């Protein structure tokens, strides 16, 4: 039965969704939307300042402040760069991972958070497999929470370091950012968009600075309704076309098990969407290649491209430490700045 949902025949007022109470703590970074363009600009500047600072001076900034890393999922890049970032500012860090803690005994996220707060944690950096977990933790603890990846939802610091990388390549020397900084820039994101928090944070952030985002992938990994996720987002199924239009190509990790589960043939997928040297040379020879890592050489990206001259993958990692220094500093000083400590 073909039924178009009717719209109200008369103009009736209906209840509006209430404004969001988040973030509860001004130092939190739960979503890329938590930063105004201004705040974003300040963060980028600060990242550069901190990166250049004398380490022996820098490590007084957060001297003896306590930061807890709460990781329910394994991580190399994110966890290590947050740890190094916090430590280079002088903070004491502690890592609680689900595998070696009472989380295995069934302790809830709320209780884990309250425990960390009682232990003196002044901020919590959370990576968790459930979308929305960072919001839950923030509401229950009232602490500044830095979202290091919540399920399929967001990974704000990844989007920030991706932005830093993009700016370094496409807008070198630009120190101030606004709604037009990335005018004319098209960023193509390829792969398992449906399950990617990196894709979401990027597609939410980049258009705010004027960029266009093209999402590319098969229907099973990229539903049509993704195009409605925000302004400046479109879907292009042809990898070739998506590459042609892009100044930045962001490849996402493909999980072979997921393809199998969706009945997608791995070889066919690679045929259609793998980033190879010849493809890159033919359709996007000037573009920057990004990948949040970990890369699976030979799956979504070939070794040649990953190690090639267009790849900025390792720069991303380096940028991650700078960005995270600024984010951790903001988490522990924002409330004080506003006189609310």
């Amino acid at each position, binding site marked *: 039965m073909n039924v178009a949902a009717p719209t109200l025949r008369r103009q009736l007022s209906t209840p509006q*969704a209430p404004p969001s109470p988040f973030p509860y703590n001004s130092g939190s970074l739960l979503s890329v939307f938590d930063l105004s363009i201004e705040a974003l600009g300040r963060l980028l500047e600060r990242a550069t300042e901190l990166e250049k600072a004398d380490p022996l001076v820098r490590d007084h900034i957060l001297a003896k402040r306590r930061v807890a890393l709460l990781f329910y999922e394994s991580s190399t890049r994110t966890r290590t760069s947050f740890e190094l970032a916090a430590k280079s500012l002088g903070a004491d860090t502690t890592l609680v991972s689900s595998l070696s803690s009472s989380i295995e005994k069934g302790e809830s996220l709320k209780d884990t958070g309250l425990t960390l707060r009682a232990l003196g944690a002044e901020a919590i950096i959370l990576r968790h497999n459930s979308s929305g977990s960072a919001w839950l933790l923030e509401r229950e603890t009232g602490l500044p929470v830095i979202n290091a990846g919540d399920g399929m939802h967001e990974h704000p610091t990844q989007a920030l370091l991706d932005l830093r990388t993009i700016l370094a390549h496409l807008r070198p020397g630009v120190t101030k950012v606004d709604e037009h900084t990335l005018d004319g820039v098209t960023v193509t994101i390829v792969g398992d968009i449906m399950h990617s928090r990196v894709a979401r944070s990027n597609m939410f952030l980049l258009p705010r600075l004027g960029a266009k985002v093209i999402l590319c992938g098969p229907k099973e990994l990229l539903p049509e309704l993704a195009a409605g996720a925000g302004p400046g987002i479109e879907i292009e199924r042809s990898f070739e076309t998506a590459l042609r239009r892009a100044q930045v190509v962001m490849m996402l990790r493909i999980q072979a098990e997921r393809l199998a589960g969706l009945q997608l043939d791995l070889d066919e997928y690679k045929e259609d969407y793998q980033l190879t040297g010849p493809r890159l040379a033919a359709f996007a020879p000037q573009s920057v290649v990004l990948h949040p890592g970990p890369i699976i050489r030979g799956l979504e990206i070939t070794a040649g491209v990953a190690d090639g001259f267009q790849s900025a993958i390792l720069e991303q990692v380096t940028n991650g430490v700078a960005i995270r220094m600024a984010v951790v500093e903001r988490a522990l000083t924002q409330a004080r700045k506003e006189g609310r400590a």
Partner: protein
Amino acid sequence: MSTLVIRGGHLLDPAAGVDAPKDLLLKDGRVAEIAAPGKLKPPSGSDVIDASGLTVTPGLVDIHVHLREPGFGHKETIVSGTSCAAAGGFTSVAAMPNTKPVNDNVETTRWMQSPDRDAQVRVFPIAAATRGSKGELINDYAALKSAGAIAVSDDGLPILKESVMREVLTSAARVGLCVIQHAEDTRMTVGGSMNLGPASFGLGLRGMPAVAESSLVERDIRLVGELRDARVHLHVAHISTAAALAAVRQARRNGMRVTCEVAPHHFLLTDEHVGFYNTNAKMCPPLRSAADRDAMIEGLLDGVVDAIATDHAPHAQHEKEVEFENAPNGILGLETALGLSLHWLHKEWKLPLGRVLSLLSAQPAALLGMKGRGTLAVGSYADVLVFDSKAEWTYDVHQTRSKSKNTPFDGWPMLGKVRWTISEGRIAYTNPAS
């Protein structure tokens, strides 16, 4: 022999077609007499309720509540749930069988109705359609009906297998029971925790598509059509999508006995109200798109929706204070149904008061064949709601009688304040104006 006089009020009884100032005499749990104001001659020793300026109407009837007993008393008990009912103006509630054990047997059906449960209003158990609600084996409907079951349902779960649903519809028809279907093709909603749409995508949550509801409603309607048995009555629980409603509308045009109910959250809220993972906006079926919500409003205004039913589903605070995808489905509803329905349907959208009340009392009572309920004609049960139809107030969940607090309506404006709820002649709740 207890008698109660309700004096000075305005009687609004949609089922009996009365909308006029009347005094009522309640005796031995029944409506004994209705007279013009001042004309009653009450027996000496009668209690008197002064209903001046208030509306007197049949006690509301909620055909979809979860009282959580037996087995889940930490969420709600029959006492606390029926206390909520009374506070909300309800005098009859039909209780779903997803208890522990599942109410698929005569013992549990009787247990729920025992006076030992101390129910504050009348409880009508809905028995499980299949053994354990597993969707395979049919229960003994004749026995369950004799024990007091008012309908059958596997609510919480769909009756998915076609052969089983066919048998359920036929067997229930044979004993004159309605089949209430939780219409969700669970094969399409695996892992889903909210409506499939732009909101679910943006929040990184797996979605439950609207077609999971409408496809099963269409399937069930096809079965009803194939059975060609006028006794068959299919009732769609908590309808939430335009497509499912359209299917019900068409089925009725074709003369089938297919009815449906809608919950206030489905005619008021959309998936945008999930906000940032508010588990107090998580239920099944989920809050839908604005277009679906609007279709529910239209369905109420044009009459295709037969009843408002709350799907009152309490969950303990700690159970809801978890990651969104892990939180149990359901929100409270008994104490806000009247206030929300009057504020929005009557005040905002101009549905006449009698029509709104009918959706909350006369129609659900008739739908499930609750004799003597949903009306105040002489001889019917003395189930009376006396309320102030003009009073505007704000819902404060901290005043709830529930053991739980899972509601998205905390702080919402309400219209219509319950002053007395009388269940079979006994005052179950009172909140006189100070």
